[in-house]
């Protein structure tokens, strides 16, 4: 059965500056939905509102047409752009709390085996990011919101992670945002650009130029 996460009717303003005004975003299990936008356009705020850690002036977050009134209802997991695992919790303990078997990480990134008993402060930023992304993808909730999952990763790891995201989307709905937009466009089944507080569905890459997200090719 396909589950559907829908966000709309979201209104958010800071100091009379309207951040989010006209939002519609839909993600089904089995899909990766890409969310692009300039710095400060409200991508992270939108994800936090969907997750429930940020209060909007108004919002409608629905799963299978059921309003998600109570935040943190274990239907949606969120990976913030900052480190997720608190500095005082060893990796193995964090995985246990999320009910994620360590072996599920070894299969994808064998090098994670060496750092299982370490605390996040003792691990390189890239390795920690890989562990956090895999932890979110292997946790139970049906939807995952990934805010800059590729930050700090070397290219070969990005490719492995992209393959794994394609594999995991069979059982999850994934919303992803990252400034490495080519990876996001490669992965996404549906793409939205967030601009001036509104979401614009993107059908082709030329629209990214029209919306001012990517520069026109040289000489055009």
């Amino acid at each position, binding site marked *: 059965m396909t589950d559907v996460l829908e966000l709309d009717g979201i209104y958010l303003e800071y100091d009379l500056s309207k951040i989010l005004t006209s939002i519609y975003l839909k993600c089904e299990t089995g899909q990766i939905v890409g969310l692009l936008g300039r710095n400060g356009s409200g991508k992270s705020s939108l994800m936090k509102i969907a997750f429930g850690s940020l209060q909007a002036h108004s919002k409608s977050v629905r799963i299978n047409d059921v309003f998600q009134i109570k935040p*943190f209802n274990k239907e949606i997991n*969120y990976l913030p752009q900052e480190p997720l695992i608190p500095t005082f919790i060893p990796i193995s303990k964090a995985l246990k709390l999320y009910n994620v078997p360590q072996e599920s990480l070894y299969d994808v990134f064998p090098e994670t085996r060496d750092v299982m008993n370490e605390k996040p402060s003792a691990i390189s930023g890239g390795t920690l990011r890989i562990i956090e992304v895999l932890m979110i993808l292997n946790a139970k909730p049906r939807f995952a919101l990934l805010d800059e999952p590729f930050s700090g990763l070397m290219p070969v790891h990005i490719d492995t992670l992209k393959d794994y995201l394609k594999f995991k989307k069979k059982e999850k709905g994934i919303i992803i945002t990252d400034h490495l937009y080519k990876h996001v466009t490669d992965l996404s089944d549906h793409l939205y650009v967030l601009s001036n507080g509104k979401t614009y569905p993107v059908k082709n890459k030329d629209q990214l130029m029209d919306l001012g997200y990517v520069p026109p090719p040289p000489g055009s």
Partner: protein
Amino acid sequence: MKVISNIGLIVYIYLFRTQQFIFFNNLGYSFKELCIKTLAIDFVIWIILTSITLKFI
């Protein structure tokens, strides 16, 4: 003193450590819920230890 230090701790966490709560939010716990449960356990332990200490004074 105990109440003041606990309030100070919560304010500090709220202002400077909120980001780390996303980890627990994913597990279904809100900041408020975690604070209430932690403070309740902390107070119970504090009362038990205080009463034991007072018995031996």
